[in-house]
């Protein structure tokens, strides 16, 4: 078990190194940063001075080494457009994105599992068929369209929810949260649904398919022959077996939720990392783009690692296979 975890951690470090190389390469290939900073009437001497102060005239390997060591300490340089350290910019935006992503995932899991279980157990009811139809829409409509439709309905027409921003936030140390104020919660509803809808439909369809599969197995038949209550069979025996693959998908999707919150954050002008990234792209603010790339990969790699370990917690068979293999 320990050997398994260690091996997975080493693999994760390998992936992060590769991403680090790509992030660094962005500085070399995405145009000359100096011309982005200076105005037209900056003299050549001043340009050289800026170049030297940013360390851009050092050899490539030296620059990479410096970048790498700084990245390990969460120093990603200074944003070209804001003239502020990228790490503090990201730290300031991180709570908004994480809060949004977590709420979206919780919404997707809860609604997805409930709807999936319902449509598997009551396959022929009207509601189950409605869920199937809705899930088809959720899986095929692009996020921005759903966001815009929601804004049109609930913000413009009905006026119930704010169409943009994060509402009032409360500071808890360096973390800012919108979960403690009414306006913060109201502002969260639509972005969270927009962001989580795809995942919800995915989880719902997965749970339904898995549940139907599990209900056909011998141990469910044997559980019925033992006279267990329908509730114990469906929600104890069947659901637990259903959740093994669902954990993987939901876990991996959490990474995508963070990465693709860019679109949702843009539509709702949500002050998170995604919005920061879009502004960075518009302004060729490479330090932010590179740091964002590293952040998102770090989140992805961490989630993968956690999912792998979580797997063994849920499924006892894997525990012994792993310890035997190790």
């Amino acid at each position, binding site marked *: 078990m320990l050997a398994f975890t260690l091996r997975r951690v080493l693999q994760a470090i390998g992936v992060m190194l590769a991403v680090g190389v790509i992030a660094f390469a962005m500085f070399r290939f995405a145009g000359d940063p100096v011309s982005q900073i200076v105005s037209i009437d900056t003299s050549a001497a001043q340009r050289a001075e800026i170049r030297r102060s940013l360390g851009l005239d050092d050899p490539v390997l030296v620059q990479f080494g410096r970048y790498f060591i700084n990245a390990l300490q969460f120093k990603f340089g200074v944003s070209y457009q804001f003239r502020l350290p990228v790490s503090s910019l990201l730290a300031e935006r991180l709570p908004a994105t994480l809060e949004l992503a977590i709420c979206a995932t919780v919404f997707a899991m809860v609604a997805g599992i409930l709807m999936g279980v319902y449509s598997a157990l009551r396959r022929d009811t009207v509601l189950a068929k409605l869920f199937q139809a809705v899930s088809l829409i959720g899986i095929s409509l692009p996020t921005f369209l759903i966001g815009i439709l929601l804004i049109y309905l609930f913000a413009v027409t009905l006026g119930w929810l704010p169409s943009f921003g994060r509402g009032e936030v409360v500071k808890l140390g360096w973390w800012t949260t919108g979960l403690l104020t009414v306006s913060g919660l109201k502002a969260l509803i639509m972005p969270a649904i927009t962001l989580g809808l795809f995942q919800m439909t995915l989880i719902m369809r997965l749970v339904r398919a898995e549940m139907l599969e599990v209900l056909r197995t*011998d141990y469910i038949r*044997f559980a019925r*022959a*033992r*006279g267990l*209550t329908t509730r114990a069979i469906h929600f104890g025996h069947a659901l637990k*077996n259903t959740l093994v693959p669902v954990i993987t998908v939901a876990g991996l999707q959490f990474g995508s939720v963070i990465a693709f919150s860019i679109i949702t954050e843009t539509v709702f002008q949500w002050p998170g990392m995604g919005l920061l990234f879009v502004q960075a792209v518009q302004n060729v603010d490479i330090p932010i783009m590179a740091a964002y790339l590293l952040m998102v990969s770090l989140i992805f790699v961490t989630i993968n690692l956690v999912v792998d370990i979580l797997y063994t917690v849920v499924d006892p068979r894997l525990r012994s296979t792993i310890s035997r293999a190790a």
Partner: protein
Amino acid sequence: MTQPVLSVRNLEVEFVTRRATLRAINGVSFDIAKGEVLGVVGESGAGKSVTGLAVIGLIDPPGRISGGEIELSGTRIDHLPPEEIRRIRGKRIGMIFQDPLTSLNPLYRIGDQIIETIRTHTNLSESAARRRAIDLLAEVGIPAPEKRIDGYPHEFSGGMRQRVVIALAICAEPELIIADEPTTALDVSVQAQIITLIKRLGRDHGTAVMLVTHDMGVIAETCDRVAVMYSGRIAEIGPVQEVVRNPLHPYARGLMGAIPTLAGEDKRLVQIPGSMPRLSAIPAGCPFNPRCAFVFDRCRVERPEPIRQGTQSVACHLFEPAKETAA
């Protein structure tokens, strides 16, 4: 005669498909007394397992019991509301399935599965149920049960898992155990142990056992009586020695003739020509008539009813008593 534990009368089971309604069980009747082991043999698709599932009320749609009666110790149990038949399953009727590798939920400790079943059917506390589970595991012959109770199914061998399955089937001291091919998926050496175990449990607790199998060796060794099924009907039923040594129905004779013996090494095994008809194409009259060596005209039009012949009962026109009045 005392009341039988299980009494099945004219049982009919149908499967409704889009094209046609298929009758998988057609007029099956038998009794099992307290402490008696009834073997049910027949080819695949003869309706052995379906009969077992019908008794325990686990025929799923599109299948349904379309006729007949099933009585458990004098109470009718077919057509009970789902919740009531649920209370009977596991408590008054225990069931053992063919494949022990897939009968247990892989994600739960075996102890938890046993305790769950005990607590579903009794008022025992968690700790009392756990003690009972350990006793049960000891009774079915699992070594060091107080340790193994916390094991997961994948940590047990096939034979040990089947013992756990049996422990689960008997945990509420049922009156009847239905064992659906309990040894088919096991090694031969383990088969004998499991059969001995089922036999011993039946004897010790006075449990009636319905043993579905296609292994004649198992039948001869274990059962008191045997029913030979063919195409959803009972061709012959009677005490095991009689049916094995002196089978009456041509199909039963063919079946016994196809058993290899060490003594008869020189003889070729007798085959029954052809194969059992599909449910959608059961011939009129006796379903065995196209394969029967003794077929005559009446077999092709009239379905034979069970006729008593000494201790046996056989559904074959060959044994029809001569008609008193020539009409």
